[in-house]
């Protein structure tokens, strides 16, 4: 199967014309006196204005990498440069926004108080406080009637919106997000996506650590698959959409066409796709992105009463599966 998966070290021309925002070189991090190897010589470059995804199984080292980038963990060896500065120093922290995975913030505060606290911690000018907080709460679409309510009474979705708002305080140039859409309703997911896309336009770099592959695929320019503390592969998501995927097509069981098998086979051949599996009411095809519409047209022309066509898995799911197979 052809994919656009790039092994680390391959040259990717367009991206590399940009300025590097983060350089991670041979990063090694162990726990428990070296018995647990979280990162094993991880090397990675992230470019300015890029939304970069981190995916991989639990315990792969994603959170450790995020912790090292935030300066919350000290690597055993290797180096990190964030906009030319080491992680964790005050000048780097001024440029960084972080959204933790579980936003269980101080429950006694209201959203406004919480943002006021972080506005002060971020060292922002007091005169900008009210306007900046109002603008952020509006931007993440947290309803105004809960701004003064205790955080302990918030739903998961409200907390996540507040989490995104606090991350954006101080106009950061680098964002680190841990499961940014977890617990959000579809409107909230779209909101977060819009915010990040908008920030990308202004040159803000973002790193998204998530298990929600659909969302990562929609958001990110590139995605790294991490396993056993190493980068197995880096995939470009906004280029070369020609790779194949499985499309499952379902039709009406009472379809008028008596010879379904032949009709489906002919349609597949005419569309230039591979028929993988056929039942009475459905079939799976291996298709390239630009062939899906052609296949559906051919099926209908051949008298198949198509009801539904669903991609069986996203490209990142394929990447995940390949990573697991290589284990």
């Amino acid at each position, binding site marked *: 199967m052809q994919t656009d998966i790039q092994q680390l070290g391959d040259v990717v021309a367009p991206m590399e014309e940009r300025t590097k925002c983060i350089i991670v070189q041979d990063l090694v991090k162990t*726990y428990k006196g070296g018995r*647990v190897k*979280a990162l094993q010589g991880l090397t990675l470059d992230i470019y300015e204005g890029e939304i970069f995804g981190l995916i991989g199984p*639990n*315990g*792969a*080292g*994603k*959170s*450790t990498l*995020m*912790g090292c980038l*935030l*300066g*919350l*963990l*000290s690597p055993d060896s290797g180096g990190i440069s964030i906009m030319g500065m080491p992680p964790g120093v*005050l*000048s780097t*922290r*001024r440029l*960084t926004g*972080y959204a*933790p*995975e*579980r936003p*269980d*913030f*101080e*429950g*006694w*505060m209201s959203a406004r*108080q919480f943002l006021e*606290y*972080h*506005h*002060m*911690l*971020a*060292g922002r000018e007091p005169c900008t406080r009210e306007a900046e907080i109002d603008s952020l709460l509006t931007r993440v679409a947290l309803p105004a009637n809960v701004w003064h309510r205790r955080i*302990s009474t918030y739903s998961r979705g409200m907390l996540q919106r507040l989490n995104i708002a*606090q991350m954006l305080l101080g106009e950061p140039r680098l964002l680190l997000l841990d499961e940014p859409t977890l617990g959000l309703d579809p409107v909230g997911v779209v909101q977060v996506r819009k915010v990040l896309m908008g920030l990308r336009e202004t040159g803000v770099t973002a790193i998204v650590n998530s298990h929600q592959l659909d969302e990562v695929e929609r958001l990110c320019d590139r995605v790294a698959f991490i396993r056993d503390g190493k980068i197995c592969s880096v995939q470009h998501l906004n280029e070369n959409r020609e790779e194949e995927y499985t499309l499952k097509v379902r039709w009406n069981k009472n379809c008028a066409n008596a010879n379904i098998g032949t009709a489906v086979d002919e349609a597949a051949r005419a569309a230039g796709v591979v028929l993988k599996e056929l039942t009475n009411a459905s079939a799976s095809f291996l298709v390239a992105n630009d062939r899906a519409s052609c296949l559906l047209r051919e099926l209908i022309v051949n008298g198949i009463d198509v009801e539904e066509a669903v991609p069986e898995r996203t490209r990142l799911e394929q990447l995940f599966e390949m990573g697991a197979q290589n284990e």
Partner: protein
Amino acid sequence: MNKGILKFTLLSACLDRIKLFYIVLLGFVVPIGMKVVTYMHGAEESQTFEMLTGKVGVAFILTGLCLGLAGGGSGSQTGKGGEYLPLILTRPVTRAQYIFTKWSTFTLVGGVLAAVQNLILALIGVAFGEVLSPYVVAGQMLERFLDAGIIAAALTLALVANHWLFQVCAITAFYVWMMAQTMPPVSVAGPSSAGVDAVALEGTHLMLTLSRLIGDLILPTISVYDATNAPHFPLLAVVSYVSTIVVYLVAAIAVINKREFFYGTSG
């Protein structure tokens, strides 16, 4: 000193319901209630309420204030509704600034609350016929501030240093110190003798002497009344007090600077 941390630590003492509950209950309701009851029943000689006032009272108030401090350590993934340290430490605030501001605020709030408690208890005593000069009461109130300073420093260290061995030592030391503070006063041991010495059992005597020594070592305090009435400036007590605070704060800063915050799944 960070204004944001100062302001919101102060606010948490007023708005965090759990903290407020502990502080009001252990700092005011119980000791004041006990004092009133002992006086009403003519049992003021028992002085049982003193076990919840003075230095121990300050310790209880400060423990309430410190609830939820330094959450989100290596053992947990979240702040659990308390203070989520990893998030705070991604802001442009130095860890030393965080420790120093927390300690200053705890000292201020704990000192004020303990001084108010002391004043209320003194007023109740006076109302029931106790003879207390304003000079003595002012000395006691100042002493509560000094107690708050050193206990807050010890608590700050104990909360940021999350190694299990240190935690075991800290909790043991706290109980040993508390034992020395709450041992029966002179009147209970026997009016003609001197407190600890009046306790007959040798084992108990040794234990109490030891706990007093450990207490003096880990939380040395300055008796303001004694100091002001002493012929010489109590240099040793002051040096011991100040140096212990400095040691605790420097250790807390060193620990938090070295501490790592892992919040992912353990692999």
